[in-house]
């Protein structure tokens, strides 16, 4: 039921110096709407809490007004948390779109590949073995760094393990093998996390478990700066490679003919996805299913052939911020945001699987 008339000659183009792109009004409209919804949810996320603020008051404070007490509540305590939710969503959406495009598999998200588990193992090991530090340097810097290191190490290990010759004689890390090896490594890492939990004191285990569920409760304004920088860097790399991603969709042969160094580009893009996923995990714990569902929702909304980068990031942000709002309003108990995302992400995943199988048997 698309409205747009796709007559190539009639498509208006936007040109800024050497960069040119086709203007697609429908797409632009949807992206604008997504941005607006996300920003609205962000304000709502700031408004709800122990003391509810009216939305107008929130906007008032954000634009420089409000009383001193209101300014404290909004700017000091709620804005950092909401912004971290936003960043986590952007990062996960981006990471999912990158991995799914490269591996040609809607299920190949960082959660499935074990990267999130690697980051989690790093962080839990820090919480449990690092003297159980809940405050101070080890907690504010150590845990995120350990998560980042864990995610990166896992990704390198999976990539090396998947390296080899594919059945068609192609050298490199092929999609199918990469996914299966990720699943295997994921199981190993989960065993490691469980083993860490049995060795912790009950208090440490509880703290680690809360973190493992994906919670914004411990979101700290100290994490905000590094997270924003990392997400921005990844976004620049990813958007710069949007053309390569589009080419990769046409298959390895065609891509090579178009002059793309496939292995190098793939490694760079997967690297960017891993950094994004690890940074998000470091900031809020493993918030499940966002990296997996956001690109698929974005693809369906925007009707693009592959997973759109900007759209996926926006949908990811919308989902995480929305889940954070829901976790504090809809449910009787204060659920961690990761539980809410799993609640709607799980069924969506099954729907994807069923769809994928249908398609596989039709082709």
């Amino acid at each position: 039921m698309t409205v747009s008339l796709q007559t190539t000659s009639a498509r208006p183009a936007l040109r800024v110096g050497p960069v040119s792109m086709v203007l697609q009004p429908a797409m632009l409209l949807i992206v604008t709407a997504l941005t607006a919804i996300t920003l609205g949810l962000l304000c709502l996320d700031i408004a709800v809490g122990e003391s509810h603020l009216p939305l107008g008051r929130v906007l008032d404070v954000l634009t420089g007004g409000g009383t001193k007490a209101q300014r404290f509540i909004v700017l000091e305590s709620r804005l950092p948390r909401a912004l971290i939710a936003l960043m986590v969503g952007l990062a996960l959406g981006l990471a999912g779109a990158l991995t799914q495009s490269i591996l040609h598999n809607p299920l190949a998200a960082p959660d499935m590949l074990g990267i999130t588990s690697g980051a989690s193992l790093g962080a839990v090991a820090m919480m449990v073995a690092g003297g159980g530090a809940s405050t101070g340097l080890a907690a504010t810097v150590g845990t995120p760094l350990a998560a980042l290191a864990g995610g990166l190490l896992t990704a390198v290990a999976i990539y090396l393990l998947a390296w080899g010759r594919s059945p068609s004689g192609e050298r490199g890390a092929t999609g199918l093998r990469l996914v299966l090896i990720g699943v295997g490594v994921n199981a190993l890492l989960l065993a490691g996390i469980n083993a860490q939990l049995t060795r912790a004191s009950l208090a440490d285990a509880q703290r680690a478990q809360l973190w493992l569920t994906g919670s914004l409760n411990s979101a700290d304004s100290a994490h905000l700066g590094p997270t924003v920088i990392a997400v921005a860097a990844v976004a620049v790399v990813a958007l710069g490679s949007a053309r390569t991603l589009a080419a990769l969709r046409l298959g390895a042969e065609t891509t090579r003919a178009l002059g793309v160094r496939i292995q190098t580009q793939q490694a760079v893009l997967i690297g960017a996805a891993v950094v994004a996923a690890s940074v998000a995990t470091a900031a809020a714990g493993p918030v499940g299913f966002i990296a997996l569902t956001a690109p698929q929702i974005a693809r369906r909304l925007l009707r693009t052939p592959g997973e759109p980068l900007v759209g996926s990031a926006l949908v990811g942000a919308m989902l995480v911020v929305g889940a954070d709002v829901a976790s504090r309003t809809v449910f009787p108990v204060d659920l961690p945001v990761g539980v809410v995302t799993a609640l709607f992400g799980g069924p969506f995943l099954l729907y994807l699987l069923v769809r994928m199988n249908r398609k596989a048997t039709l082709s």
Partner: protein
Amino acid sequence: MTSLATVRRRRLSGLLAVTALLLLAVVAGIAVGARSLAPGTVYDAVQHALTCPGGAFTCAAGSTEAQIVRGLRLPRTALALVCGAALGIAGALIQGYTRNPLADAGLLGLNAGAAFLAALSVYLFSFSAPEQYIWFAFAGALLAGLVVFGASAVGGGKASPLSLVLAGAAVTAFLQAMTNALVLLDASALDAYRFWVVGTVAGRDAEVFWQVLPFLLGGMLLAVVAAPGLNLIGLGDEVARGLGVHVGRSRALGLAAIVLLAGAATAAVGPIAFLGLAVPHLARTVTGPDYRWLIPYSGLIGALLLLIADIVGRLVVRPGELEVGVMLAALGAPFFLAFVRRRKLVSL
């Protein structure tokens, strides 16, 4: 005909060898630990335990060594033996019915399903003993299995190895998140859960063994009954139907056996990954594809591997120990990875 005779001889000699190894492992399982016991002491203690009137696990206290053997090592070894056998057989059945070389109760989400419903029942009804939550574990394994098989088989009968494993991973991730949320609500549930979810035979008393034994034996019996039908189903549903197999009934029988075996073993010792995956492949190298041989072999090799993993776990980080679930993940993951790398991923 000579080749048939060779196969038969190999199967029989293999059976002898595995049984002998299993006996050795049982003795080692009783003797090795934080306090290792001399073979003579073990023999005396076991003999005393087996001949005493109150039953092997519960008779009156003797020396410290005898207490260790009766109170700790015997129940632990017995539990490892039956649960290992159950998981091995469940693995063989799952691989047979799905015709999928990568199938395993852990990878397909059955463990996570059992874990979730067991945790839910513990939270809702404050259960503490496996006999209370075992029914929920069964139901969880069954539901997760149905969802995974259903989701991966939609749209054309046979599920590909990839889609089955991915469906399992997806369902596992979902159930894991739900379980995590559940144990967060209740600190005491978390304390029990974290020692169960890691997968261990340590610290389980004889009660647990007796509680799950009937279910495991029932599951093994069903597996033996299912074996001949499974051989024919291996030829494809059409052929099997042509040969007079009621395919639907045979699948239901298999699913019941799988749920009984994997559900009860998981309820007793926690989720154990990779055992069910590796065991049938090891067994197949000796028996070939005949499930009438493959199933008993898988049981023996599963028991052997679980026992060995448990014993090695007691030795590697003395005086502490590594849980058998962690040991098997550490041993099984490389097997899985090598398997994915080496073999072309064809269906069985």
